[in-house]
């Protein structure tokens, strides 16, 4: 079922947590709310769930306005960062609690619990208590507890942030696989851009209580529309200069071939350049810029090189081999995305 939030506002004390947030989440899709801590993403999720009452705005699930409904009637599943498994109940009791509240026949409850535990790969662990399970197992149970009720929407609040790195990557794929199998509209909150990019059909990047940009993972990564989105999602060097008619950017006396749109010629713009679109080329190659290496750090699969082209113009590139600090290199940036156009341009 599609979810729509419109005009959501929320203040805590005097501080605004959300300003007029409007977002559509497509039916059956996997959407991510991505942003740094304090950006309002969790508040928005909790408003959808009904744990927090917004100051203004509506929440619609399908055709139903759920704004007036308490959480226990919304048919929205929620998975918590802390798992929130009830320690005094066994795994089966945790998962079956919602079904028992609905007074389903005992045989049906047992069958559905068995089925969902199989589905999350926890078959046979029904008699354990949560305290006897690892973090990853606990999160699978929390997931099972939410989806066994076949809710209209599934909300996940940073569900992987308490797991260690390797398990996190594994669980991402697991959650996505489950979501595809069940076909449930899912909204996922995270501050981890890698998670967001890998899992989502739709990413909504949030900052300071506002939605900065919404789009497909690839669209948001490749065409950020603000300096914040460009730097929060992946690495980017922000350059501030003047767009030229030939698509280059004039910055610190250098012309960078960034294929800027000609319509911006003459305007002062801010351009995001991703390291992967900067290549180290042979001396004297066309369009190459002379630079001096100032930093070189190993990142496992590649080296991250920072080089100074001119005062106030540093570029970042990835290389396969280490470069000596102080060495001269030739860099060629090939693409930049305009993230801001200054209004008062000469």
């Amino acid at each position, binding site marked *: 079922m599609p979810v729509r939030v419109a005009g959501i506002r929320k203040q805590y004390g005097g501080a605004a947590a959300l300003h007029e947030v409007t977002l559509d989440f497509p039916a059956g899709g996997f959407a991510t709310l991505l942003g740094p801590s304090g950006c309002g993403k969790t508040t928005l999720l909790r408003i959808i769930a009904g*744990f927090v*009452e917004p100051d203004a705005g509506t929440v619609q699930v399908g055709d139903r306005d759920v704004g007036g409904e308490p959480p226990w009637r919304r048919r929205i599943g*929620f998975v*918590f960062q*802390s798992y929130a*498994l*009830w320690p005094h109940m066994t795994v089966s009791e945790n998962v079956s609690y919602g079904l028992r*509240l609905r007074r389903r026949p005992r045989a049906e409850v047992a069958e559905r619990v068995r089925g969902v535990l199989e589905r999350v790969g926890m078959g046979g662990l029904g008699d354990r208590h949560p305290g006897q399970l690892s973090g990853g197992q606990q999160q699978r149970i929390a997931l099972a507890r*939410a989806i066994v*009720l076949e809710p209209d929407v599934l909300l996940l609040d940073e569900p992987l942030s308490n797991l260690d790195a390797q398990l996190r990557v594994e669980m991402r794929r697991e959650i996505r696989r489950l979501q595809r199998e069940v076909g449930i509209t899912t909204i996922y909150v995270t501050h981890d851009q890698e998670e967001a990019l890998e899992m989502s059909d739709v990413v909504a990047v949030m900052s300071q209580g506002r939605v900065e940009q919404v789009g497909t993972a690839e669209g948001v990564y490749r065409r950020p529309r603000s300096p914040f989105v460009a730097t929060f999602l992946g690495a980017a060097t922000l350059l501030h200069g003047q767009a030229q008619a030939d698509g280059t950017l004039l910055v610190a006396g250098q012309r960078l071939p960034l294929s800027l749109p000609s319509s911006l010629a003459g305007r002062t713009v801010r351009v995001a350049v991703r390291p992967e679109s900067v290549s180290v080329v042979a001396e004297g190659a066309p369009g190459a810029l002379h630079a001096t290496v100032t930093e070189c750090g190993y990142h496992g699969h590649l080296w991250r090189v920072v080089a100074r082209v001119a005062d106030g113009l540093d570029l970042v590139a990835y290389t396969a081999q280490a470069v000596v600090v102080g060495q001269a290199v030739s860099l060629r940036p090939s693409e930049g995305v305009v993230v801001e156009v200054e209004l008062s341009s000469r």
Partner: protein
Amino acid sequence: MIHRGRDPWLGVALALGLVLIALVVLPQLWLVRASLVAPDGSPTLAHFARFFREARYLSALRNSVILSLVITALALVVAVPLAFVHARYRLPGKGAVLTLAAMATVTPPFLGAYVWIMLLGWSGLFSSALRAVGIPFDSIVGFQGIVWVGLWSTVGLVFLFAHDAFSNMDPSLEEAAMSVGASRRRAYLQVSLPMATPALLTVGYLVLMTAFTDFGTPKIIGGDVEVLPVLVYNEFLGEVSTSPSMASTASLVMVGLSTIVLMAQRWLLTRRSYALPGTARATRRPLSRLGTVLVMTWTGLVFLLVFTPHLVVTALSFVTWTMDVPRLPVTLANYEALGRRSLSPVLVSYVLALVSTVAAVVAGVLVAYIVVRRAFAVLGPGLNALVMFPYLVPGTVLAVGLIVAFSRPPLALTGTGAILGIAYFIRKLPYSMKAAEAALYQVHPSLEEAAMSVGATPARVFRDITVRLILPGLASGATLTFLATITELSATIMLYSAAWTTMTVVIFQAAQGMGGQFGVASATAVVMMVSIYVPLYLIRRHYRVGAVLS
């Protein structure tokens, strides 16, 4: 928070508020009225003027203040160094020492007064013996008696708090001091002791208030030395020249002083509380053989004095009493007499303690839930204040308020079991509320939200999740409430009637030399000790005196 309009907790909060206003606020307002109204019904300040002018009232005030301060100072001097040594050095019997200290904290002080007067009173067993060998010992009765009993009944509490503070101190703090050149002794004095001041301030406050509000000890062993709780009692129930107005006035002076002391303690605490990083515990250093012997002798002496009442009263319950004098042979006659003729006080104590404990725990959980989980702007803090207010009101004062408020129809409760039950309920509500509050803070709100998200209504969430998770905390809170109730004397003594005589009243009367039932009273005291130490043993793992009181 969830939708305000349909939150059933709002109704619960309102109902609790009304009950507490009727039971806590109204009696106090009646007290205020009694102290400010002249016999002809006109408003007057004459009672307060009289209080601060007449020698009798002023000397009671002075006695109360001086005695409380002296007892607190002595208890700190005796217990803090002992606690430090036990917290920091490897000594035998650590568990036993802590258990004894915990037992001491739940022993009612009047038990000590009762026994010490039998030992060191004018015709006491030791006094007579001392005079027989030519040492001119008169009697412990009076100022020194109150101090002596007060000291040994509070040493255990100070020991527990100080031991906790010195044990839970990160050793790196002292190591840091020594790394910059402080000797170990200097580090102890200039780092460890200051770090422990918040705990010492808290326990100092508790001892001060215990001494200030204690009725039993000064009444039993004070002789002519009158203190405020005894003054209130005498003005209200004494045989000659009673004055309810003056009793009310003295009561309000006590409440005023308690409030000032509480505020002073809070102010000092905010100035001296340290955010302690880490959870490392202090390491315990080895002690030489001689040192160990010295420390253990010292410890043994202190705890022997603390437990003299227990030992003596147990021994006296097994001897033959003729004409109020204990003699051999050893016998079970006192217990037989207790079972045959005097079982009623035991039953009364148990019934009242159980009923008021259940009521206090139920109300305490509800109030704690509202305070912790619901952001009611006025009701939350209001309920909290209503529950905690009786904490400031000495038992004697509380009882006077209840008598004044509930002595006329339609609520003529004086002399009934109900008024005792109400007194216990509101006096111990702060303890059960604080215990429930501490337990609730351990339950992450997401556990409740998770239940709501799978369809549980607030009532179901509370029943299926919250209560189940705080049950261990509630059990220990309930036990402490029960212990405090079954040993309550200062309100009981004003409110009991013949049909509702408790164990504490029986012991008190014997200590006053009334009733002439020393044997049965001793047996009753042993029953009371069993009634508090068995439950205390059952919850020993959860016993955290500081969590509830501070």
